[in-house]
């Protein structure tokens, strides 16, 4: 597999997250220097398009929204804020700021576009807030308090599954999706949340296998099979792959991908969910694939850079193998 190194001057600060946009043409990065930078990475080049300032502390994660809503980027930071940036007439501006948390916001994740424009934010105050865009620059907030004791480190949405119906919904009418997402926290647990009919969020499942803080969770994209898959990684150096075979979504079984020597910061799936990228404190990014007999095999590793690699790599498009 081939990779492309992006050189950017972050001085002494660490780069916390790097995310490709939907089409793989742009890369958003965020770091301890409180900035969010956007690069154009087409054709192997890298041109800095924007340097967004607005946070007052290290920025932990960035997330691109689906392009049908325009060019929208969310970022979350130690300063307890979540900022949503939008590109208007070629320039990036802050379009909304969410300050509803009492401590560092660690993770942001956009819901599947079928649900609308919804952002989930996980924070060190243990709460998860869901921001829904209702139009005219207004965002509605729903908060799940005490989702995880001590703090929530990661949130990841399940792919949108049309519930059973094979008939085409008449236009304008939204089908009744069952919204679900997973969260990982400092209580070593992964929790699965489901939205009830009354709009309230309820904890549906608790997945227990890690012995230390869960650092990242990633719900794999759906490839049409009835199974659901979630990857989780933790401070204890382990990465687990959770699969649920039945359609009712009740029994999840973990399989250990690998035990690394150091904390694992991020896990991320490719578009068709056949490759998992794992990055950790041992300065490596490794790529994993499931083999014929169900075992996960490391297919490549990238050993670059000094210092702990805590950037997550999402494959907007698979590079030529």
């Amino acid at each position, binding site marked *: 597999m081939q990779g492309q190194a992006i050189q950017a001057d972050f001085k002494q600060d660490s780069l916390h997250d790097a995310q490709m946009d*939907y*089409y*793989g*043409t742009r890369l958003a990065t965020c770091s301890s220097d409180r900035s969010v930078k956007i690069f154009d990475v087409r054709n192997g080049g890298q041109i800095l398009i924007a340097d967004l300032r607005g946070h007052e502390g290290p920025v932990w994660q960035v997330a691109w929204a*689906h*392009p*049908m*809503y*325009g060019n929208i980027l969310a970022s979350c930071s130690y300063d307890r804020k979540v900022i949503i940036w939008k590109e*208007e*007439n070629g320039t990036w501006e802050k379009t909304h700021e969410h300050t509803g948390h009492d401590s560092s916001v660690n993770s942001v994740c956009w819901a599947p*576009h079928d649900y609308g424009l919804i952002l989930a934010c996980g924070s060190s105050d243990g709460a998860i807030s869901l921001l829904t865009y209702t139009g005219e620059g207004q965002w509605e907030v729903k908060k799940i308090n005490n989702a995880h004791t001590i703090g929530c480190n990661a949130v990841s949405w399940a792919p949108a599954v049309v519930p059973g119906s094979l008939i*085409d919904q008449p*236009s*304008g009418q939204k089908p009744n999706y069952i919204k679900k997402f997973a969260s990982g926290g400092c209580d070593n647990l992964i929790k699965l949340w489901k939205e009830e009919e009354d709009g309230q969020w309820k904890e549906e499942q608790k997945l227990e296998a890690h012995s230390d803080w869960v650092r990242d969770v990633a719900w794999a*994209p*759906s*490839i*049409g099979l009835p199974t659901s898959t979630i990857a989780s990684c933790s401070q204890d150096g382990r990465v687990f792959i959770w699969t649920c075979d039945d359609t009712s979504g009740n029994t999840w079984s973990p399989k250990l991908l690998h035990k690394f020597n150091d904390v694992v910061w991020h896990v991320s799936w490719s*578009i*068709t969910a*056949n490759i998992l990228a794992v990055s950790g404190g041992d300065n490596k990014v490794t790529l994993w694939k*499931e083999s*014929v007999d*169900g075992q996960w095999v490391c297919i490549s590793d990238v050993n670059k850079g000094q210092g702990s690699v805590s950037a997550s790599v999402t494959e*907007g*498009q*698979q*590079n*030529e*193998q």
Partner: protein
Amino acid sequence: MEEMHQVAIAAKDPAIGRQFSSQVSILSAMELIWNLCEILFIEVAPAGALLLHLLDWVRLHVCEVDSLLADVLGSENPSKHDSFWKLVTILVLQGRLDEARQMLSKEADASPSSAGMCRILGDLMRTMPVLSPGNTQTLTELELKWQHWHEECERHLQDSTFAASPHLESLCKIMLGDEAALLEQKELLNNWYHFLVTRLLYSHPTVKPIDLHLYAQSSLDLFLGGESSPEPLDNILLAAFEFDIHQVIKECSIALSNWWFVAHLTDLLDHCKLLQSHNLYFGSNMREFLLLEYASGLFAHHSLWQLGVDYFDYCPELGRVSLELHIERIPLSTEQKALKVLRICEQRQMTEQVRSICKILAMNAVRNNRLGSALSWSIRAKDAAFATLVSDRFLKDYCERGSFSDLDLIDNLGPAMMLSDRLTFLGKYREFHRFYGEKRLTDAASLLLSLMTSQIAPRSFWVILLIDALPLLEEKEVVFSAEQTYELMRCLEDFASRRPVWREPGVQRIQEDVENTKLEMLRLALARNLGRAIIKEGSLEGS
């Protein structure tokens, strides 16, 4: 491949030249493997024919012979040419005995002393038994004949017939399949598989396919002589000689940098029903797995993604889903590209993807103020909410500028108008303008009235509709009937009573005044019209 070879030689920059050369060598290696797979797996050549195919295979991939042949023959004195013996040896190594004989006859003509020996050797060459296609002799018969011939050659060697000419003697040894003699010609043979085939030709011409791998392994070992270790290509060929298809695929996957070769080879073998498919969790079987990998790789390219689409179509289990996931991620840099992508989705009834892509394009258009484009995309996406948004923008523009952009589009909406109320209003309002322009005043009037009474007009637009009624009211002939005039009056009062009260002074006051004046004019016009209408209707019966 020829072209690339030419380019490689002609390249001025040595780095590029090297790059091209390496590409050429990779392609020729792939061709080598492919042809061998064809011979062994697909044609499944039996003993006897097997060797002939292998000979062809070797001849195909060693091309210097022909140029050398032309060179030597073209010279004045072929037999005195530097490379003469080299050429003859190569011809013998490749089993091209007829041509070798011709060369020898030239030598015989040139130097009478060796003429006798040349003739004998030539005869030996002529009489070597070969299995020719269409020949009715069985394998056993061939073996027997070959055995006799072999013994005859042996005898000549024992009798030192060729002792006088070391060249001829070594040729005879080669024809006897003497390994030492063959290994002496390492340089001419160039690689172990050539060595293998030549060795088989002159020692075991009726080799059976199942015994092939034994000879292959020993040939490799002898040829390399412990000096170097086998390269990936060698391993692949060995696996092929062992008829281990899975190993071939595995070694190729490891050695080559992309899935192109392996995907196609596996596909071919699968179609020949040669692959016992494992049931993989991902990709259902190996062929599909590799095709999916290859197609996914294609999608990263700005134009080859279209090929990827076709490949996904041929993956029955997971192709469609993979295509759905990938096709949305293609960057839509131009409208043509977007249209291409949409056409592909529509052909395959991927309605979700069509909707999603159209929404993205519509959003883009609105941001760039191309309202007509945005409207057509939202219609294609059957997105009512967005259509309403765009229609509102149109109406707002009209309020501000007094004219519509993209008239063509709005005029030709047709049944798509029904997508959203706002859109219907937009279409009908435009129709009203057209009627007025064509002087179809009564039609215009009734349409205007229906627009107001049907509640599909947005509040903000009512004042404009009412004002639009003015010119119709001022016409010489009575356009609105009494009934219609009453309706209009009711609408006017409705509107006036529900107008928001301006709380701030200043600009709004002036606006309010202007509006009040307009409404007064309207009331006057309506009253006048009512009068005229009543008179008209009263005087002429039933009009």
